[in-house]
């Protein structure tokens, strides 16, 4: 079965349409906020898969599993077939709510088999610790 080269979760990413190059923006490591639940406005998980013999034409299911600090989990699945020997799966999330501080865990599974994880620390900070906003008027 296909094997994985890497799995990373960032705030955003882009694939250059002319060169097919990937750029990641702000890899997620820590999230902090004064109030919970807080909303993760955007997250993009990318995994790169390399086909092995016999994988041509096979249907694969790539599942992004998010395990919240309160142990609730959410699954997001994408199916793909290898159009080339190497295949990227990019899964974007918008407006994901996080209920409480703790460890936010992103997992990737291929055909139900766990392959990799990415952990993000979620912490609470006082509103006074936040950087001051620009004054108006």
């Amino acid at each position, binding site marked *: 079965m296909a094997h994985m080269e890497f799995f990373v979760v960032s705030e955003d990413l882009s694939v250059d349409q*002319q*060169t*097919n190059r990937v750029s990641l923006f702000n890899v997620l490591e820590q999230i902090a906020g004064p109030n919970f639940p807080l909303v993760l406005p955007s997250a993009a998980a990318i995994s790169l898969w390399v086909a092995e013999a016999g994988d041509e034409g096979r249907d694969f299911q790539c599942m992004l599993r998010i395990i919240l600090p309160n142990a609730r989990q*959410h699954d997001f699945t*994408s199916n793909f077939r*290898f159009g080339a*020997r*190497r295949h990227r799966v990019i899964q974007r999330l918008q407006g994901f*709510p996080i209920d409480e501080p703790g460890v936010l865990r992103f997992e990737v599974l291929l055909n139900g088999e766990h392959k990799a994880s990415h952990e993000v620390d979620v912490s609470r900070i006082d509103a006074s610790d936040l950087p001051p906003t620009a004054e108006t008027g």
Partner: protein
Amino acid sequence: MALVELDSDEIAQIVFTVATPNGICAILRARSDIAEIRRHLFDNAGDARRAIEDYVRERLIDLKPKTYFPHEPAFCALAVVLETLPMPAAEDFLSELSALKIAEMPISSRVAALCLQRRRELLISNTLAEFKVGPIPMPDASSPKRLDRPPRIPTETTYPDIFKAAA
């Protein structure tokens, strides 16, 4: 290097003397001018589609029925240039040329098919999926069903009335 370099006599000689598409691909891949043109297209990716389309259109004018297409060697070389370029214009050209089955261009379509096959082995394909997670249900302050706070009981004023006190 511009695409017109592909019209060289040297490239034409290779295509005419080497009989098989595999052989043509192997020799053209090893040439430095092919690599330089590929690099030029990659570095100028924004203009690459227009450059490729203009180059092809200008030469297709010479495609005449029942006559060998004179620019076929250049098209073979262009297919090899584009085989590892990860841009949609390259994919379009190779797909269309490999699907072409006409007697006037007997070799270039087979060269393009080989380039397309190698391209599939080398380049990375993508699957993109977007998930919109629903908004968090926020408590509505104006809702009469709100039970987390006891109802307010009307009471007397608890602050001193300074005007009444003064009187």
